[in-house]
């Protein structure tokens, strides 16, 4: 799985491409945990190009969220496609991680 990375102000924006499922979630998880690792890291996951996320991908987000809180960082997700947003709602992950309509809004909030 390809995951683009860019820095905007003091926020790291990760943009995975494709499906975050059983095959790709190990890559997604490794990248995510590596990015939220440093203290005070502010990270936005840009879901613009994500078609689907399975429980394995959601678990990775939860792990990153826990790690981020432990290191006084911030984590948010943004630009969810309607189907991905449905999965966040059905799994109640909407209650776990802040969701923004656009990546720009997320970056502004975290920056």
């Amino acid at each position: 799985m390809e995951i683009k990375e860019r820095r905007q102000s003091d926020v790291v924006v990760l943009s995975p491409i494709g499906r975050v499922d059983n095959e790709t979630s190990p890559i997604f998880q490794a990248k995510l945990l590596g990015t939220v690792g440093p203290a005070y890291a502010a990270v936005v996951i840009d879901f613009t190009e994500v078609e689907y996320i399975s429980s394995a991908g959601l678990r990775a987000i939860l792990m990153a969220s826990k790690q981020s809180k432990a290191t006084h960082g911030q984590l948010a997700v943004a630009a969810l496609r309607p189907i991905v947003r449905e999965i966040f709602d059905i799994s109640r992950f909407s209650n776990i991680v802040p969701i923004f309509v656009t990546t720009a809004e997320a970056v502004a909030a975290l920056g």
Partner: protein
Amino acid sequence: MLARFWGTRGSLPTPLGHAAVRGKVKAALTAANGRLFDSEAAVDAFIDRELPFSVRSTFGGNTSCVELVAGGDDYVLCDLGSGAREFGNALLARHGPGRKHRFHVFMSHLHWDHIMGFPFFTPAYIPGNEIRIYGCHRAMRDAFRQQQSAPCFPVDFRALGAAIEFIELEPGRPYEINGLSVRTILQNHAGDSYGYRFDKDGKTVVYSTDAEHKYGALDDSYPFVGFFRDADLLIFDAMYALADAISVKEDWGHASNIVGVELAHQAGVKHLVMFHHEPIYSDATLDKVLAETQRYEEISRAGARLVVSTAYDGLEIEV
């Protein structure tokens, strides 16, 4: 085979309260909106076709007890939660106390909500009945005796009239019991629990409750995929939402609807029935969770369609 659900609630019995009943009456009257019905059949048609399940009925509040009807004169049950009382009473109403029966009961584990129906299981009091209780826990006999002894209960276990036998099963070993091929699997739950796979005449029912799943990336190497493989019916503990099951309720020993769908898809299951409902969930919430889970099944489907339903006390599913 046919699965008949006598108790479907998790953790503790959950009676429908007065406010919930009033809410259903109010919702039904609001839906009728002043309509006049010229017959009882018209009333029934309105109830069945125009009211959601959570308004016209209830998922029920008895704890785990599922009957498997697989032919023969003996009865087969999974767990003895408070639903066992309903089962026993229905049996006596149908046959009277004179007719003697043999029961085969498969225990997932010995937590209170799974054994609490036994002191109220009337056939246990009738001499001539035979009750064979199977399970993988060594402490089965002790658990049943302790809950039915002073000061917890007025009638001591030793006073029961039926012939009661506890039969310890070896996890993973296949058995032939009452014409059923039976296999067990160790599940992740405090004090351990066990799932059961029942095969007969090319049909398979799996009973897997009180089980937490902690896989990361799911593939066929996960033991439950093989255990659930091609099941016609999977009775699955879907007590929590995924976010709760892996965060605040991690290690509480229960699974989620999302994990149920993923496992069922991976294993080629035909029908997933959600079971062991969270006691704080109202009928409306359970209706909503069912609709969401059916939608998730649709979103995540890569192969054949998986039927998804929610168990309720009184539900029958034929496979």
